Structures are given as structure tokens and as C-alpha cells.
């Protein structure tokens, strides 16, 4: 949960645009230059880090995707890396799996937290306790949480936690990560358990900003609980809903550590291979950094497409 905000700074109206506004107007040119130098001096550390570790790699990734390095010699190969990557049959499997994960994760990890937040918001008791509980798994190192699922919950024998529960309920047990059909749902379940806390807290905060009069009015008009949710809660939180949908898509498209730990990478019959895992495979096992860079650019383009749709949708609503 790194990104929880909208880059939208509400400026106080009438706020002066220049620094030290209360200071006398007779600023000399020299003073201005000096102020600016100090300003930039304070920025330099962070900006350098952005240049070296964010902005430059961004450009470099795109350049690398059109190059090929062999025995220390770098040549320009045009779209070769792209065609090679796309020709790889696991490319399409990986995208299919990743989209499948994203859709399942949206259904579970996006809708469920919203209703959990609505529920928690109604409670007058045990609120703090419930909030701590939901957020607790977010604080576990993902490797720790996933080993827990891998060894205990998804144990395919009847000694596994989930199978023991299913058996006690007289339901058929599952092979979990060893069955290609269950791999994705099992990964989504683990991932949702680990990550839903952040979304719940953000929803809760925005639910608390909904004016009570709106519910009051809806109730007087005879709207039941469900219609109050549809006509008051959802419209009132739509910006947060849209933002979290976007963030959820970006986050789930990067599916990596779940396949790596739960499914030892590709999983049964490649049912766990994700695009991010493929990037990792190409870049760090097959010594094909250029192919991995091309895959990264493709992922960026796909996500940029989603962002464009997001901007469209949210802009229209305003």
C-alpha cells in the first residue's frame, strides 16, 4: 500500500503564490536568484535519486527494449525483442493468467473491502479492534504470510487447514496449488487476505465524510438499506472507488511473489505464470535483459491504457 492519495492538492483560496509573502515587496534580483538557488539546493538530493533510479531507467528501459547485447556489444535490433517475446507461447499464457488474477482480485479484493468498511462503519463497538485485525496481515512480510498459506492452508493432503475444514463440512477436498483450476483462486484468496486492510481503512475514512443528512433524506423518502447504499454511499465515495480500482489493477497486474512462493513459479501446467514472473524469468534466468525490458514496456503500455480510461471516467463524472 504505497499509493493512497490523489495527486490533487486543494489550494486554499487567496493563498499567495510566492514564498515569504509577508515580506516587503522590494526584493532585488540578486535576492531572487539566491532564493532560487537555495530552493534548488534543497531539492537536489531527492531529484538526483529520481533521475538515477526512476526517470533515467524509464527511458533506458524503452531504449533497451530495441537493443540486443551480445558479448558486450550492443546493437540496435528494432522490434526483434518484441516479436521474440510475443512469439513465446508463455507470453499469452502469462497475460491470460494475469488478467484472470486481476478480474478475480477485483471481484474479491475490491468489492469485499467496500462492504466490510460499510459494515464496520455501522458498528459503535469494537471498532478499533476490528480495524487492527483487518490491517494486521498487511504488516506481515509477504514471504512469511505466503509460506503460511503454502504449507498449512493449501496442503493438498487432509492434514491441510482448508482441507480439514472442507472435510469437517463434508465438502470435497481440493488439491489447491497442485490443481491447475484451483491455482488462481487460491492465489487470489491469499493475496486478498494479505492486502485488503489498506483498502478497508481508506474506504472507512471516506465513509466518515458522507454527510448524515443524505441518509436521513433517503430514509424519509422510503429508501431501504440497499437503496441507500446504491444512491448515497456509492455516489458519495465514487472518487475513492475509482481511484482504488485503478490502484488495484496496477497492483494486481504486477502479480509476482504469489506465483513465486505458492506455486514455485509457473505452477501446475503453467497455471500460475504471470507477466511479472515472465519478466523476472527472462531478465534474471535466461539472461535476456532486452526481452525482459520489452515485456516491461508492453506492461507499461497496457497499464497506460487503463490509466487513460480511468482519467476519462473520472473526468466525465466531475
Amino acid at each position, binding site marked *: 500500500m504505497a499509493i493512497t492519495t490523489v495527486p490533487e492538492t486543494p489550494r486554499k483560496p487567496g493563498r499567495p503564490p*510566492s514564498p515569504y509573502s509577508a515580506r516587503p515587496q522590494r526584493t532585488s534580483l540578486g535576492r531572487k536568484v539566491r532564493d*532560487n538557488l537555495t530552493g534548488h539546493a*534543497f531539492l537536489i538530493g531527492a531529484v538526483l535519486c529520481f533521475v538515477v533510479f526512476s526517470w533515467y531507467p524509464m527511458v533506458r528501459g524503452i531504449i533497451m527494449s530495441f537493443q540486443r547485447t551480445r558479448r558486450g556489444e550492443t546493437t540496435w535490433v528494432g522490434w526483434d525483442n518484441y516479436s521474440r517475446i510475443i512469439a513465446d507461447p508463455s507470453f499469452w499464457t502469462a497475460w491470460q493468467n494475469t488478467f484472470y488474477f486481476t478480474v478475480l482480485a477485483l471481484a474479491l479484493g475490491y468489492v469485499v473491502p467496500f462492504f466490510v468498511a460499510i459494515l464496520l462503519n455501522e458498528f459503535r463497538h469494537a471498532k478499533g479492534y476490528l480495524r487492527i485485525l483487518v490491517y494486521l496481515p498487511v504488516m506481515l512480510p509477504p514471504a512469511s*504470510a505466503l509460506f503460511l498459506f503454502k504449507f498449512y492452508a493449501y496442503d493438498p493432503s487432509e492434514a491441510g487447514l482448508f482441507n480439514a475444514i472442507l472435510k469437517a463440512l463434508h465438502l470435497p477436498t481440493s488439491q489447491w496449488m497442485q490443481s491447475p483450476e484451483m491455482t488462481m483462486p487460491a492465489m487470489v484468496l491469499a493475496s486478498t487476505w494479505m492486502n485488503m486492510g489498506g483498502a478497508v481503512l481508506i474506504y472507512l475514512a471516506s465513509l466518515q465524510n458522507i454527510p448524515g443528512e443524505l441518509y436521513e433524506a433517503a430514509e424519509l423518502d422510503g429508501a431501504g438499506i440497499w437503496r441507500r447504499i446504491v444512491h448515497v454511499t456509492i455516489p458519495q465515495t465514487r472518487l475513492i472507488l475509482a481511484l482504488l480500482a485503478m490502484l488495484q489493477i496496477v497492483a494486481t497486474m504486477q502479480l509476482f511473489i504469489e506465483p513465486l512462493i505458492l506455486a514455485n513459479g509457473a505452477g501446475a501446467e503453467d497455471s500460475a505464470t504471470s507477466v511479472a514472473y515472465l519478466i523476472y524469468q527472462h531478465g*534474471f534466468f535466461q539472461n535476456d535483459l532486452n526481452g525482459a525490458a520489452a515485456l516491461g514496456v508492453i506492461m507499461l503500455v497496457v497499464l497506460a491504457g487503463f490509466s487513460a480510461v480511468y482519467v476519462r471516467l473520472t473526468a466525465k463524472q466531475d
Partner: protein
Amino acid sequence: MAQDSGTRTLISQSQLSRGRGRVIYWTLLVVVVAGFTLVFLGPLYWMVTGALKSGQEIAQTPPSLFPKDPQPQNYIDAWNNLALAKLLFNTFYYAIGAVLFQLVFDTAAAYSLSKLRPIFGNVILALMLGTLMIPAMVLIVPQYVTVIDLPILHINLLDSPFAIWLPLVANAFNIFLLKRFFDSIPEELMAAALMDGATSLRTLWSIILPLSRPILGVVSIFAVTAVWKDFLWPKLVMPSPETRTVSVGIYAFAGGTPMNVVIAASVIAAIPTVIIFLIFQRNIMSGLTTGSIKG
């Protein structure tokens, strides 16, 4: 965070406290409290106690709720065989460094953008915020290539803590969070300091920072947990067994180690972040939601 300020929510308070509403409310509350405890705390209980079970007990059906013959030896084995002391020390060291680097550079940058407002400040801020939309996975390869051969300097940062510290400074979310906080500090305080002849650095140190303690705390906690939770980046840039972080170390050992020992190690790795969370949960929650907009 606004806390139960008595404002009405979806269902009116009077409806909840009378007759049928009251019964439903309490039933639902009990069900949810029990359910959530089971769902979110249960697995953790299973983890802590499971690591105390013997290999046979783990494989038995149905699984036992309490370890019959607790084997603390699993935890001791995990500690010794995986060299957890060293791994924990490494992770702790990277986390502290990350806090210091982020506090110094990100605070200075946010201060500059918020109060000094140099020319092109807005462009720089926009470029920084733009990186929020770029997923880490997209940059992983070019970032790695950059780290093994730093441009101009031609230094290899593999196995150097700077490979973890410096990329974390490029954190647009922190800078945005800090800038928003600094924006709320009145301009008049700055002007007064200027009248007294204070330099920009002095103003930052004596006026801005003391007022910003809450947000600095939030940024520090986020920095620690980010380092503790990160996996792929430390796995790539800290390839030697001596420089690994605890998550990567457990993963590297998982193949040839009995699973109760791996789980015991996972429990130990999770303890520091869980403790941090329990101590600072209020700050963490407010930090998570300060940036969120009114819906």
C-alpha cells in the same frame, strides 16, 4: 481520523438501539468480531503453534488445535540454521538507513517545493508524481542495470546498502505527503523567521521540523515497513548470503529445510513489523488516510 463523532451513518442510531434493530446489531457484531478474529488472527495462531509441532504431528489428520508435544527446538533450529540473527540485523540496518535517507532528502525536497517554491518546482513535482503511475515491475530491469553500473560514476552497487537506500528516496508518495503537511504550516511563521534573519535551513530545522513530528513519524514507519516487506528488489541487489534480508533469506532456505522450521523462521521475521504495527497503529492508520480525498 474522525472518530464516532455521533454523525449518522447508513442506518440511524435510534434504529440500532431499539427493539429488533438492537437484536440484529448485537448478533451481527458478535458474528463479525468472532469471524474476523478467526479469519485474521486464526492463521497467525496456526502459524505460531504449527511451528511448535513435530513433523509427524503436522502430517496427521485431522490437524491438532494445540501442539501435543511442543517443540521449541524448531524455533531454535530456525534461528541457528538460517543465521536469522544476521538476516534480522541486515534488514534492520537497511530499514534504519532508509528512514534516515528518506527523512533527510524527502523532507528537504518537500520543504523546497512547499515553502521555497523555486522555478520549475511544479514541473519537478509533476514529474515525481508521475512515477506513482509506473509499476515497480516495469522498471525492475533497467533499474537493476543502472544499479550494477551507475551512470557516469561506473560504480557497482550490488551488495551495497545504498542499492536499497537511494532508490527508496525517489518516493513521490512521501514527498507529496510531506509537502501537503508543510503547506498547512502558516506562511506568517516563515516570514517572521525571515525577519529575524534566519536562513532557510534554520527555518526548516527550528520551525518546520518541530511542527511536523507526526508526519515525520508516519514517513519513518512507512520506510521501515517498506524495507521489511520488500522482496524482489533486495533479492536482486543483495545476492550474497551475508547481505540478504530476512524475507529473501527464508525464501532461499525454504527448499531444503523442514517446513516447520521455515514457518518458525517466518514467524520470527514477522515479529518486528507486527510489534511496530501494534505500537504505532494509530499513526499508521492516520498516515494511510491523511492523503485520501473526500469522496
